[in-house]
């Protein structure tokens, strides 16, 4: 690419330089990318596919270069989506993305041969390459002596040793890249030109693979690489078993390995629940205070109600989960960057494959116990699209933290203080049973889907077990920040819109007699009438709900949910909880006239639920109704944010709707069987 030899400045007027970063997974790409771009980066999706694209601005010699982070790759033969995308980028086929002027090939110095394979392939695209030889510190520790100059001569590209985590070698790398981007000489690829590296046809009986020409190339590249390796790398004094292997002996031990794995899981789980609760309470209080403030500052009226009950309550209700999501991503990044994640997949692959799941599905499913959203985002590590889909489709069956308030309310209302045999709490057993029920359903659903709609040969499991490394704090935190940003963006768009819609259908049409009541209230009643005032207000709210669109929908769907033992009021709460599960609690409070500030432990809500009567005077709720509702909540897809994320991650409305549909139908059937079966057996 010819660019004028201007002396810096006026970078806008001329063509922007584009640089791609490529490398094997775990080679240190992300760390280097972060060092080069700092916070000037953004995540976008490649058009039409779900693979993320990370782009950043690299300020260099007064110019801003566009830096593209390619997915982690082992090769450029198009057998996976990531490889396809990388090829498209390198050949300039991606819309709105110019062909890179040069490529930084990130090469892990401790794993040279395999890393160099990708370099040879990039060079075959005839794009200038600069090799960034990362992990030089680790190489030194392993007594590897690497002659970068010699390597550069043999490869005929610049080879720059760097330690990205310590920002060493960045200066040298920068100038080499700048030079490469402006060069016009094409790279040499001796391994395909020189017969020395190429096998004779009759020597290619070594593999049954039918594509002899492709195999020939693989051999030629590795032959060339072996030569480069032998001439530029020396192993000084043979190292004793390195630290990584010693750690590994423990962590993947037949017995201890599994115990440690369970221990780590419990720790992560426990921390997400306990550490997150403080910031979550703070956030909840903050949103409450904000709501109160706005309610009292803004003039009364629809706008006030919209902002307080619709926007602040709705968006706030979702944002309180931010601490949990951040903590989860903190753990995920640490587990990933240390190299432990690959070991967890290694330990559990056999077990998971019985259900048709990939070993790598384990972590996303675990995360989903906190929240399905990060769980579903974490499925990206599963390469096979069908395996990934299967995992996404079952992830929401894991009982997430938003279901807890619902379970708690039901248990507190109907099963508090009861026990089996005098010492096993019924509540605890029920709670555990709900979690187990979700897991069991997920396993069965995966099993069935992998044999029908998502049928594919058993997923190949060929996975690198990267050396254990200390995670780079900067990378970990930057990853958390990026995730938080994506989550906030969603809260600001999809969730905001849904909150407003939900508010509107409970707010409109306005009930006429509320005006009368409010007018009376406004006439300066003495404080002694406060109770009446509250009763009036509660009555007004309940009338409002009943006559609102939501209330009407509740009445319309009543025949459908009657076989589950639910009346129209529960129906309204169910509809509202399709936005987010925990909304059930606040909606029930509104419907049962107990004011909105009730939580799942509130006495008044509990007694209101117990006292609720049907028109014939029989109670609406029985323990069986409560159990039925819990069963419904285990299985039903009631979370708009999850729906939005599934849409984004699968890039398909069909799959998204399928998921909402099959989960909700399953939930209905299970709830139906629970209620009718229970009634048949004489409960309720």
């Amino acid at each position, binding site marked *: 690419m010819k660019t004028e030899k201007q002396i810096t400045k006026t970078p806008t007027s001329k063509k922007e330089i584009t640089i791609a970063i490529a490398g094997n997974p775990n080679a240190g790409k992300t760390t280097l990318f972060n060092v080069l771009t700092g916070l000037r980066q953004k995540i976008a999706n490649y058009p039409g596919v779900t693979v993320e694209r990370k782009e950043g601005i690299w300020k260099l010699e007064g110019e801003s270069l566009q830096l593209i982070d390619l997915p982690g790759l082992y090769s450029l*033969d198009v057998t996976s989506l990531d490889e396809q995308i990388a090829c498209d980028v390198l050949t300039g086929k991606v819309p709105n993305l110019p062909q890179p002027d040069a490529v930084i090939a990130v090469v892990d110095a401790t794993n040279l041969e395999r890393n160099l394979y990708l370099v040879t392939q990039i060079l075959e695209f005839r794009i200038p390459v600069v090799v960034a030889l990362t992990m030089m510190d680790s190489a030194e520790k392993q007594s590897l002596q690497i002659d970068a100059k010699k390597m550069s001569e043999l490869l005929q590209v610049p080879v720059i040793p760097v330690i990205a985590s310590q920002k060493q070698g960045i200066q040298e790398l920068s100038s080499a890249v700048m030079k490469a981007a402006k060069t016009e000489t094409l790279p040499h690829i001796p391994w395909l030109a020189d017969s020395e590296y190429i096998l004779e046809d009759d020597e290619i009986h070594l*593999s049954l693979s039918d594509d002899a020409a492709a195999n020939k190339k693989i051999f030629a590249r590795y032959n060339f690489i072996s030569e480069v390796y032998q001439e530029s790398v020396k192993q000084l004094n043979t190292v004793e078993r390195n630290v990584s292997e010693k750690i590994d002996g423990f962590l993947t031990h037949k017995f201890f390995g599994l115990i440690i794995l369970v221990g780590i899981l419990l720790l992560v789980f426990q921390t997400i629940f306990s550490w997150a609760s403080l910031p979550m309470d703070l956030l909840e209080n903050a949103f409450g205070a904000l709501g109160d403030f706005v309610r009292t500052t803004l003039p009364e009226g629809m706008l006030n109600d919209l902002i307080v009950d619709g926007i602040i309550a709705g968006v706030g209700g979702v944002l309180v989960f931010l601490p949990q999501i951040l903590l989860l991503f903190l753990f995920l990044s640490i587990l990933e960057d240390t190299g432990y994640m690959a070991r967890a997949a*290694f330990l559990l692959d056999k077990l998971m494959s019985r259900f048709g799941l990939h070993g790598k599905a384990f972590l996303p499913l675990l995360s989903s116990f906190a929240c399905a959203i990060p769980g579903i985002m974490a499925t990206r590590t599963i390469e096979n699209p069908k395996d990934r889909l299967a995992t996404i489709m079952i992830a929401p069956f894991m009982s997430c933290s938003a279901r807890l308030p619902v379970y708690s309310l039901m248990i507190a209302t109907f099963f508090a203080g009861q026990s089996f045999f005098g010492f096993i709490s019924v509540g605890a057993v029920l709670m555990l049973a709900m979690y187990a029920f979700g897991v069991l359903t997920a396993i069965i659903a995966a099993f069935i889907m992998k044999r029908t709609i998502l049928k594919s040969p058993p997923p190949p499991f060929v996975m690198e077990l990267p*050396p254990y490394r200390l995670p780079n704090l900067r990378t970990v935190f930057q990853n958390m920040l990026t995730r938080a940003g994506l989550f906030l963006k969603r809260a600001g768009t999809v969730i905001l819109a849904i909150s407003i819609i939900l508010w509107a259908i409970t707010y409109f049409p306005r009930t006429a007699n509320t005006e009368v009541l409010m007018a009376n209230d406004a006439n300066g009643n003495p404080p002694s009438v406060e109770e009446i005032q509250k009763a009036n207000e509660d009555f007004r709210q309940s009338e409002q709900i009943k006559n609102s669109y939501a209330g009407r929908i509740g009445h319309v769907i009543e025949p459908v949910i009657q076989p589950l033992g639910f009346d129209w009021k529960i129906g309204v709460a169910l509809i509202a909880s399709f936005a987010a599960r925990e909304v059930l609690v606040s909606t029930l409070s509104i419907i049962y006239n107990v004011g909105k500030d009730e939580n799942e432990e509130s006495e008044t809500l509990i007694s209101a639920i117990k006292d609720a009567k049907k028109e014939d005077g029989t109670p609406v709720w029985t323990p069986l109704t409560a159990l039925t509702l819990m069963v419904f909540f285990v299985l039903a897809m009631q979370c708009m944010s999850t729906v939005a994320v599934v849409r984004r991650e699968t890039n398909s409305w069909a799959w998204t709707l399928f998921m909402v549909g099959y989960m909700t139908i399953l939930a209905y059937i299970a709830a139906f069987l629970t209620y009718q079966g229970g009634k048949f057996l004489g409960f309720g």
Partner: protein
Amino acid sequence: MNLAKLSIGKEAKVIKINGNSAITRRLMEMGVIPGVSIKVIKTAPFGDPIEVRVRGYSLAMRRNEAETIEVSE
């Protein structure tokens, strides 16, 4: 003999890779090609997958995949 039968701690040379699937290709790209030496490090707790060492790094694969790799000690 195939790689799945190689005992733990033993080193061998790859002679041939049987199969023409994408995974055969992947194995070759990751450096498992005839002539290279390969060593079995351990098996996972449930007997599958196995971990091997090749070209200085660790690779995990299922026994199914290992069976396609012919080796000689």
